[in-house]
């Protein structure tokens, strides 16, 4: 169990490291964010829906946490 958790942690931090590091090339040019700027592509939209869901699942299940917050969008300014 512990080994599995450490393995998952390693995988996720490796992915995170690749995202941040060697990848000045990963991603798109600033003028290519048209699709990412669409409302449907905003990870943090529908905050109320997520709050309602989190409330329900927290009171009916033993798990919590997860979503956090993220970037994306048009990346303007």
């Amino acid at each position, binding site marked *: 169990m*512990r080994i599995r*958790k450490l393995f998952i*942690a*390693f995988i996720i*931090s*490796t992915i*995170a*490291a690749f*995202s*941040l*590091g*060697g*990848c*000045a090339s990963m991603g798109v*040019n*600033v*003028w*290519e*964010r*048209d699709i990412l*700027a*669409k409302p449907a592509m905003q990870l943090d939209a529908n905050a109320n829906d997520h709050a309602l869901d989190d409330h329900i699942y927290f009171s009916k299940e033993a798990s919590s946490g997860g979503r956090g917050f993220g970037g994306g969008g*048009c*990346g*303007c*300014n």
Partner: protein
Amino acid sequence: MFKRLLIVLSCTLLLSISAFSFAAVNDPPKSIKLIASALSDSAQLKNKVVYVDFWASWCTPCRKSFPWMKELQDSYRSKGFQVIAVNLDKDHKAAQAFLEETKAPFAVIFDSTGSLAKSYHLEAMPMSFLYGRDGNLRTSHEGFLPKDTVDLNALVRKLLAESVSK
């Protein structure tokens, strides 16, 4: 468990930051010639102060900058000031709709393939470049916030006051 994980994540984060701090930032074209060549009349920018603005209809700050650019163009057109708005929409209809809505009085270049944007090595949206009457790049500006207009207005007036050197 948590402490170890935090150390792992912090280390990868720090390593990653140092890794890409070495990435070089390329310089945008120092001369207005590239922009001028994209216009139907490339001589129309001679001896003018030119404000080149890269924008797209999906970019909210870009849309917000249009009223200010309109005002600037109307105020200083007679003094030899020209706004060139380079549109980067891949969907031309969206760009047209916005231009009709705002009735922009300045020149628009449509760069849907992004080749001009690439030549300018754009780092932000919107991004603008101010050229003096001599056709040389004086400053670039990333993003647009209402408070930016104060300094930009002052700079435009300063450049307009310069006499034609050619």
